[in-house]
């Protein structure tokens, strides 16, 4: 195992302790539920979309440090972005966590989200980090069915 500090970076721990945008959103235009059976993580994602722009985004739920921080940092990264901008970010994030170790992910484009690059060395925890993003995909598609990372 690589050093645990790669996984539990200070930025991640800060978002775990003080999650940003963690609240309900009564005027959300779309919501979705996500569930990670391995951890028992639950997340509910709220989106306020206006003409393709993410005007507001928030979440509620219970999860491990990685999924909570990932949800928190995702909401910060996406607020004010267009859906067209959010999609490639999701793909970059996903690629960073699932690409083979010998491939260098595009950390620059991911900006602050690059702190999650250490997660890929902990394969069972990758789903924790991607759960909020998968839930976002569901919310964008306006699916009512809960998503699962299994």
């Amino acid at each position: 195992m690589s050093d645990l500090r790669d996984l539990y970076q200070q930025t991640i721990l800060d978002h775990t302790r003080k999650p940003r945008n963690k609240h309900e959103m009564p005027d959300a235009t779309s919501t979705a539920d996500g569930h990670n059976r391995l951890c028992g993580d639950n997340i509910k994602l709220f989106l306020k979309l206006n003409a393709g722009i993410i005007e507001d985004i928030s979440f509620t739920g219970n999860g491990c440090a990685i999924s909570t921080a990932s949800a928190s940092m995702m909401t910060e990264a996406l607020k004010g972005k267009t859906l067209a901008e959010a999609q490639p970010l999701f793909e970059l994030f996903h690629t960073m966590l699932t690409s083979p170790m010998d491939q260098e992910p595009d950390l620059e484009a991911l900006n602050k989200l690059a702190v999650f690059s250490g997660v890929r060395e902990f394969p069972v925890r990758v789903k924790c980090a991607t759960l909020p993003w998968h839930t976002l995909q569901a919310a964008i598609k306006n699916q009512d069915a809960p998503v699962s990372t299994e």
Partner: protein
Amino acid sequence: MTTTTTKSAVAKAAKAPAFDSAAIRSDFPLLQTQSHGKPLVYLDNAATSQKPQAVIAATTRYYTNYNANIHRGVYKLSVDATAAYEAAREKVARFINAPSAREIVFVRGATEAVNLVAATWGMENIHSGDEIILSEMEHHSNIVPWQLLAQRTGAIIKVISISQRGELSLDHYAQLLSDRTRLVAVTHVSNALGTINPIERIVAMAKARGIPVLVDGAQSVPHLAVDVQKMGCDFFVFSGHKLYAPTGIGVLWAKAALLEKMPPYQGGGDMISTVSFAGSTWNDIPHKFEAGTPHISGAIGLGVAIDYLGGIGMDAIAEYEHDLLLYATKQLKRISGLHIIGTAPEKAAVISFVMENIHPHDIGTIVDGEGVAIRTGHHCCQPLMDHYNIAATARASLAFYNNREDVDRLLAAVEKVKEVFS
């Protein structure tokens, strides 16, 4: 009288040698390995146990020296394989004090054993409106097969509640027993809490009304001496892999009278007496329930695991593990912000815990980095987690090859968890 005294004295003398933890540990090759550059501390015994060299060697010996199919060859290899397989059945019968090896059915594990009973005995004896009593602390494997049966038959499932400490409410159980109760299916020991249920009393309460009882012994046989006749139940199930034997082998014990009446579970070779397109007839028990080539090496390995445990003595194991449980509990309780889930006075060496503001999965990852393997999650007991209003726990489950040093390593690892999140 004299003979009895002598026998018990001999038995006592045989079990007398002091519990040699270090020697026992050296019998398990995997415990000599490292994890993340540190000596492995394996504390996930409720999920599966490590295997002693004797079991590994027996499995290898079968494949190396006498691998053949059983019950059908006239040649020596097949005769030898059959003898070893059937000898294992005898060992299992003696191990749980079954009246006869005819009552031992080899299955894949406790899960398959429960499914077998539900699909055969259950389909014949449980009808619409009948009631099946389970408990809130059951493993999914002793819930879902009954739900499937209930869906097919229209039966109703009733659930015995538990106290905050994790003990079954016998008052509630007494209230649930009714004229419509057709089966009580409960666990002997909880895999998530460690609670040892008062199984003889639970069985007696059902038997007083003529209700059959299935006992899930997956977590009890590795840690306590089990006597199915004394227990008085009708069905008893367990898995080999939790009993220091290979995966994929397990046991259903049922009273011969019940097995005789039950229809076959799966059809195929070995379970038949005669086959024609006009109709087939079934083999005698237990073979009626063992269609196809069974897990021969697994059964042989299970027999050797039982021999190995017999050399130590289940009472000695229970005593040693209880002492280790008390030590681990006392030490873990000292850690502020750590709460133990499951505090029944009668417990096997399972400690589930949660930590304030730290998710069990983060605990699991960090202690793993320290070479300590524990389980985190819902332990296949989602209804139980709902009872405590938690999604998951971290769980350390001990075996007789663990020692105080393992517990100390766990404590240091848990302190590391606190450090990361401080």
